[in-house]
């Protein structure tokens, strides 16, 4: 049984403070229902075929993960969506098995992450869409896909440069 949770990543201090002023800073939230993810094309339809996939193995090579943005170039300070696939083999024939998936991004140089939390929906056995990613400033970003099974997490990550 696969459940999908939104990222629990803690917001940076300044953002957290501004949210406090606005009425509260939420942490980890309930999983959105799959039916709630109404935007986006049907699962069977290939999306943005011209955009290249970026592929990596997770730390212990239990998963092979690839992703691509559904808009290229990735927009600055404008929400965009990301397509993610999780497989157990390098040839990508068997869908990965896990309990939770988290898609997140951060800027280690500035010691903060995104200041919004994307919504993730399952679009197929190995395919997910993370909606509402936001790179709010130019610079070097890292994108993380965390897969959690039985309380154990494995991370795959990529770096990219976003021009101003």
């Amino acid at each position: 049984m696969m459940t999908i949770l939104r990222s629990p990543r803690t917001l940076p201090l300044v953002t957290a403070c501004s949210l406090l002023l606005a009425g509260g800073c939420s942490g980890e939230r309930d999983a959105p229902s799959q039916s709630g993810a109404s935007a986006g094309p049907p699962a069977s339809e290939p999306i943005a075929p011209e955009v290249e996939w970026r592929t990596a193995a997770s730390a212990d090579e239990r998963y092979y993960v690839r992703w691509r943005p559904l808009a290229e170039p990735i927009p600055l300070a404008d929400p965009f969506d990301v397509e993610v696939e999780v497989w157990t083999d390098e040839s990508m024939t068997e869908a990965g098995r896990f309990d939770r998936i988290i898609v997140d991004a951060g800027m280690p140089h500035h010691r903060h992450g995104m200041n919004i939390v994307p919504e993730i929906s399952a679009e197929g056995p190995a395919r997910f869409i993370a909606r509402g990613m936001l790179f709010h400033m130019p610079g070097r970003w890292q994108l993380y896909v965390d897969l959690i099974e039985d309380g154990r997490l494995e991370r795959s990550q990529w770096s990219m440069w976003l021009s101003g």
Partner: protein
Amino acid sequence: MGPLAHTLSLTLPVLLSGAFAQGSPGATDDGAVGAFAHQVEVPAGMERASFLPNGAVRVAPSGVGSGRTLIVPPLDPEQPIVEERPICTLLLDDPVSDDRVPLRIQIENVLDRPYTVEIPGGALEPLEDPVRILPLDASPHRKGFLVLERGAHRLRAIGVDGRERFRIGGKGAGPGQFNFPSDVALDAEGRIFVVDTDNHRIQRFHPDGAFDREWGGRGAFPGLLAAPSSIDIEGDRLYVTEELNHRVSVFDLNGRFLYPWGMHAVVPRQGEGRIHYPRSIDVSADGTRAVVCEPFERRIQYFTRFPGGMEEARRQAMPSKQDVSSHFGRYLAGDDDLLAMWEPESGAVAVFDMTTDTGINITVFTNHGSGWDDLARMGALHLDSDRQEFVVSDVVNDRLQLWRLDRDREASIKYDPFMARLTSAVELDALRADLASIAPDRSWVVPRIVSFTRSEAPDAPLLAADEANGVVLALDDRFRPVAVGVDCATPLELLADGEDVRLLERDDQARLRLLPLDERGSALDGEGTILEFNDATRGAALLDGVLFLGNQSGDRIDVFDRSLASSEGSAGSDRQWGQTGELDGQFYAPAGVAALDGERIVVVDQGNHRAQIFAADGSWLSTFSLSSGYTVPRNPPQVEAPAEDGALPE
């Protein structure tokens, strides 16, 4: 200007103006305590200070338990009186380990008169790490007492008959849950205020234990809190000490921020109103004086009212840490050419390249928070230089993390914020489930890992000292248990020296013991070596069979070498180096010790906000911090004293 910058520019003035403009609608008068009066040195280990009716101050090791206590008289503050009789707040007739214990409680440090409750045997569930006991006869509603159990993350209300009236807590961050609570207070209406330290908040409960409200949240802005450590209520004001903001914050009883006082000390022993890691506060009954205890500085400071009242209190500069470039400490791990150190204030782990004479900061990883790659409070830090890996124990989020360094050893040394990456993590509840399956004969709780090490033997597992279950665990590379090692009630450090592994622990007689283990954590002999060493620090390193212990209260390093040669018996330190001070080679509260490359010893000199590197014989080699390092001593030249006739020496 990016969105974040907009947020900052808009948020800061609003926060500041809002916080300071709230006023004190509930205050009974305009008086505001917080003006520095004077300070008194106290011995190491003193954590709580409280006023007596005659104006003297009683200083005690903790809120619960017995021990040497001081009375600082009001008229001769430089001469504390050592009171050898224990001012006990809790007397147990039997060890806590029994299922049900008869209990006798005396509370003197709150009411300043004996308050004794006799609990018959069998009536009360054992206490777990009690840190505060508060009589409820101060409340108009109830009789009995409250007991705050830090390790159990709970507060229990006990009647005089020993029957539990209610309990609050359970580990967590939701309303009514706690993460290592450290203090509790009552107001005149019997409402209960709990210092929820690792959730960085205050929680208020109705007298019957029902959750009422909370405030705080981690941060440094007015009204936010960072590691609140104690609380006192006088009238309609609530005073909170914050260890990591190095200040006192004052609220009304509804959580509205009134004003702060205190400021981080820049150099040790600064005092004079600057506060360093405050642990307790007590405000006199008339609200005109306060005493703050700072164990790190071995000091109490007295404060009185600002002559200009609340207006002057609010005019004081916002407490600032800008003068301190790095707090530097407390957890440290070193191995060959790498060093890692966790800084609680920033919540980050700093990594240093140690291939040169001083440490050079090459990256920083993790932040304070609750996410999988965040860290709330360090329990232990392990570094494996060959693998370029770090293992982190987070005792608040209950996770272990594995970080890996993408570092080219052949490349020139440079700072790269992207160098460390989280590769995997595990929830400790999953580890508990694994332990229950491999050792079903034991009762397992969620582990609390306080130290790691690994033997250099081929394929040796990672050893982890589990304080919650009182045992050493052997873990594989995915943090799955492969063996359950020796029992240890109070583990302090696991140490490896080549293929040799030792456990440093407090034994059942509270003595410090060094026990040899095999690579899977089992004891090689039953007794080990008892060390004659009374400091409670966890800082230790083992190098070529020599043990180096950081002596925080003595500001020195104690070295055990020849005396460890025998496998059993008692050993005193064979040599020492260091003394109190800020010159190179001197220390103020050394908080961590690590061995490097088989030759050097690194000491985190926390009070001086730096680290120092020594040869194994104690010779000073260099000093460094996050942003600087040097190998030529910066000690001032020794000036020869003038001759008796006043002539300067030639």
